[in-house]
């Protein structure tokens, strides 16, 4: 069972308290109705599914109930960083040099 740090509670809590909510940093267009078919496809259907670093959304379902973002290595399952929803993609990751 993973330990995940909630950036709102500022605490590491067991995975059981959280729900994954898919890939992060996929912006919903401010003018949704005018989005082209191609852009809608990218927005709704296409996900990166990387082997390695993934930016994803989690919800502290059974805690503060807040959605937040996390950076996880899909190979090691290690969480490198978590940060609040709305914050930009971190420029630098801890331990990224490894």
């Amino acid at each position, binding site marked *: *069972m993973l*330990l995940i740090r909630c950036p709102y509670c500022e605490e590491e809590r067991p995975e059981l308290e959280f729900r994954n909510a898919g890939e992060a940093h996929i912006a*919903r267009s401010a003018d949704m109705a005018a989005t082209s078919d191609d852009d*809608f496809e990218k927005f709704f259907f296409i996900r990166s599914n990387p082997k390695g670093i993934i930016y994803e959304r989690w*919800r502290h*379902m059974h805690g503060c109930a807040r959605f937040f973002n996390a950076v996880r290595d899909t190979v*090691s399952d290690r969480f490198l960083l978590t940060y609040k*929803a*709305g914050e930009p993609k971190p420029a630098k990751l801890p331990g990224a040099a490894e």
Partner: protein
Amino acid sequence: MIATFRIPGAGRLKQAETARFSFDGQSYAGVEGETLASALLANGVHLVGRSFKYHRPRGFLSAGAEEPNALVEIKRDSARRTPNVRATVQELYDGLTAQSQNRWPSLAFDVSALGDIASPLLSAGFYYKTFMWPKSAWKNFYEPRIRAAAGLGVAPDQPDPDHYSARFAHCDVLVLGGGAAGIAAALAAAETGVRVILADEQADFGGSLRFESGARIDGQDGFAWAQGAVAALKAMDNVRVLSRATAFGYYAQNFVGLVERVSDHLQSPGRELPRERLWQVRAKRVVLATGAIERHMVFADNDRPGVMLASAARTYLNHFGVAVGRNVGVYTANDSAYAAAIDLKKAGVGVAAIVDLRDHPTGSVIDEARALGIEVNFGRAVIRAGGKLRVSSMTVQPKNGGGERTIPVDAILMSAGWTPSVHLFSQSRGKVAFNDETKRFVPGTYAQDCVSVGACNGTDGLSATIDEAYAAGAKAAKDAGVKNAGANTVKGIKPKVDASESWSRGMLGAAPGAGPDTTVKAFVDFQNDVTAKDIRQAVHEGMRSIEHVKRFTTNGMATDQGKTSNMHGLAIAAETLDKPIPQVGLTTFRAPYTPVTFGSIVGHARGPLFDPTRKTAIHPWAEPQGAVFEDVGQWKRAWYFPKAGEDMHAAVDRECVTVRKTAGLFDASTLGKIEVVGPDAAKFMELLYTNPWEKLEPGRCRYGIMLREDGFIYDDGVVGRLAADRFHVTTTTGGAPRVMNHMEDYLQTEFPHLNVWLTSTTEQWAVIAVQGPKSRDIIAPLVEGIDMSDGALPHMSVREGRICGVPTRLFRMSFTGERGFEVNVPADYGQAVWEALWAEGQKHGACAYGTETMHVLRAEKGYIIVGQDTDGTVTPGDAGLDWAVGKKKTDFVGIRGMARPDLVAKGRKQLVGLKTKDPKVVLEEGAQIVGDPKQAIPMTMIGHVTSSYWSENCGRSIALALVTGGRGRMGETLYVPMPNGTIEVEVTGMVFFDEKGERLNG
């Protein structure tokens, strides 16, 4: 019966009480505290099982958890029959009843052992080859026969009456393995004051100190030292000591699962004791001190009962006081087996000869063996074991060929060397490295905050082991981040090793006795009956990766997971491939280390505790009324209320007619309810639902549709606007949690600028639907402060007031097509208000109705149920709900998805009504619909039935269906092919009753 193989004065159980037990119906005496294996050996019983594939007679290979052969069934009563228990682990208690497995009619005479003769049919890959032709024979012939003949124990056929508990624990340092290394590490860590857990799978701590008679620590016998050290640890407040606790899984972030066997060793465990306890431990640092497992020698017929690991024979002698034979032979490729011969010889057991595969070994144990008069042969191999139900001889030959000599023996003790137990390390995702000099895989690259010490780390010798473990324990405590760790370490003194033994080296793979001969059975994996020949054959048939060899031969795939066989299998494959071992690779170690019961994983989460049961406030009224309940998610919902003599059909017909004739009361409390509040509440509703909300006046309601971004219907429900900034949203019963999640997601992440609060109020409100022409007459006398006239409270409106003196949100709405109300009251008043309404209803002849009638009545009106009439691929247009989509809106979730080319294309499936040509025929929900029943099979299916009922009000059956281009097919005849014939149907509109909707105000 006198236990004839118990050696007076030997072992540590001299004072133990006698324990009587039975094996295969025969009574024996043993002593408490020994294992079933030890007790059987004390009685001279070696034959305890039959092998999986060939049904070969088998005895004990080991004295521990690695045992592949001696699996028995332990039976406490008819329900508590545990199959596949390792007799080498099961502790004896008075009255224990054990049975052998996988034999018929008896252990000594097993007809399936003929499989041994037919074994060419059962060679490597037999699963994939032999039974594949003809294909149908697999299912009808081969598989049932194999399952009957092979396999291990028989699963119990009654519910498990035992209970299992679970604990979560946190610690700074978790030490896994309670041998010399683990104890030393725990001592060092514990002395710093950090929280330590020390766990071992055995009943007694000490690990191999149980048999290593040459070990002396701090001036004492090694085992005695271990007992003293563990007693000291137990006395410390910061230490938890768990015995009989197997660490079976090492998961992410130092999360370790252990199963503690709490009462399997007790004669009559009290009901208060769980059978097992699952420990889920999160440790800052883990010290792995899991030791090493001895390997057997691979030679012909090395599976005969009486052929066992040298360390096992030493354990039986030195710990349990039992001799495994009277005249034993030893076959070895390392030093440690000499110690077994020496111990047995000193105890008065005859040692016929030591056969050492090595050419010129030297060392003190060899000298000592010779000094005791034991015959020692170098450069020779045991090429064959004699005997069948028990080994009777070993045949020795110089390893480079030459004359054979057969030596009578009643046991053969073997040692090919020791394999470090890297299972948990590997489970932690650490990478093992091959040490070419010692031919071992040892921990290489670590992936987690753990450290390996002692034999599992490839560290040889007790002194080096304790040095390493003690230092690692102190460092783990320090690394765990405890501030004062290390400050008071002075009080601890590192244990001093005065004497120990050397067990290094050995050999991997097949010994000369494994033959190139194709008929020889030199076992690599005992439990799965995999021989050296099978591994070679797998390579010859093209398997290159060890993972393929493993699956093709099933080597290492039995319940022992190849603890004794993996390295031999790998070495034989590497030799056959002519590649170095690391290039062939080691198979992955996976949890669990040893088999784990379902009970321990399930714990208390069974029966009524498996999943929460949700009951409404009105449930206590409905139950004594004789309601039949159905499960809807976690909810218990009243399904129908049968009167005496009524079946479901009759009850539902009566309820349906009564609602439309007078009125009915329905418990709608399970509806999901969400309070949407805030200055931007209407804006938020505009974005989350297809409908327009800004202009909805407070006090009015609207049927809302929620889409996902892809344009498909996600949920629906009636929404009441209580104030400019407050909406009372209802959702489907099953959809409530996900709708709340969906709303929160958008509010928090896409529309965080909106000033809105969302609160789930599902359980705060009890909801009583009163529907039917008399509904107002029933409610009105109980209501205060609300004008109930049609002008003041029209259809689709909501008012706040009081009913029966308690606050209510009174909705005028209908899911039946009748004049109707939904009375929301705080849940605590739900039952009382229901009872008051019920008393009023009785005056008018109203009935209580359940979910089935609710379904029929709504279907009569063509009202959809999301999730039944829609399936996640249905748009508002498909469902005929275009009117509910705000045409002037510029944004809402799903607005773009709805406009996708496929969703606006012609020929989509649309929701329509169906009437069977024969009104008495009720269609099956889910049935497929075709246009031409005479077409060839497979037919083109153009839709399916989503809802179907008998409608007593319509006097006929009714159905809803999704049909390709359905709304363009009105009046068309379609067909529903069923096993008993094809049913003709007519496509109709979705409203079957009161098409004009006049009854809403009736």
